């Protein structure tokens, strides 16, 4: 069976580097598609179902979170482009940016972190990793 995801040499090298730096797994929490014509979801009566999609390898760019008095703790995560492209293809998303935009957050060690930005790290126009900026949950911000 052929792999539908094309892996560039840079992405393969990045995967090796991520694994050698202690690459771990994260869970991308995705909401189920909205039900057409269902007013209860628009009114907040019904909530969508969520599915947690594993992505690996990922590493924290810095071991410690960026902390300040006025802002919530912030982490940066490097995610394998190979893994992201696999999820984009299997779920039928147009691009990785749409995938991360639609995600409800990232589950790491049973804590749901909010994605504030997702940037592709590229070589010759091909992404080899994605940099996610994550912040602590809303309840922990104060």
């Amino acid at each position, binding site marked *: 069976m052929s792999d539908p995801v094309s892996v560039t040499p840079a992405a393969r090298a990045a995967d090796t580097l991520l694994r050698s730096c202690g690459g771990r797994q994260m869970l991308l929490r995705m*909401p189920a*598609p*909205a039900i057409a014509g*269902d*007013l209860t979801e628009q009114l907040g*009566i019904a909530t*969508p179902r969520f599915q947690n999609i594993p992505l690996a390898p990922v590493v924290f760019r810095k071991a410690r979170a960026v902390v300040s008095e006025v802002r919530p703790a912030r982490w940066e995560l490097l995610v394998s482009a190979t893994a992201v492209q696999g999820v984009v293809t299997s779920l039928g998303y147009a691009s990785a940016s749409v995938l991360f*935009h639609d995600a409800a957050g990232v589950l790491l060690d049973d804590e749901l972190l*909010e994605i504030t930005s997702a940037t592709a790290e590229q070589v010759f126009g091909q992404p080899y990793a994605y940099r996610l900026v994550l912040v602590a949950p809303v309840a922990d911000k104060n």
Partner: protein
Amino acid sequence: MQNAKDTFYTMLQSRLAAVNPSRTIVVRGTVRPGLLVEENELPSAPPPTDCFRLCWTKLQLVSTSPLPLVAMECSIAYATAGSAGNAAMDRGRMLAAMDGELFAALSVEPRSAPKLNYSGAGVGVAPTALSTSVFWADPVFGPVIVNEERLERTATVQVYAYREAGEL
């Protein structure tokens, strides 16, 4: 006052869709008319453009009769960055179009709607009609805020409803 909030939202959504059926948004893969209630959606940053975002801000008890009258302030925010085909040079016209659509939807008679209870509603199940109506005042349009390439405006509307017996 959740029933009044739900009724006002569904009323405004249907009126805006009648004024401009082509103003739509895609929420989790589904196309909807271009109005959403922020508190009912998943957090999203940055907020979507070219649609109306409804937010309930203030609540005041106007009269304490056996049928109390409650005033709620509804804040409707909207923004546009223009269209890419016109190099965003039409963003002023697009904001003016949204101003006009909102004004048309809120100023058309009647300025009231029968209050409905959506708690038991669903796909194919109609909401329950209550005894009183929801009514509203003229919208007040705030100044245009220039946020980089985006033009943003917030309009506020006072929405009134009677709190019926048994209503939360």
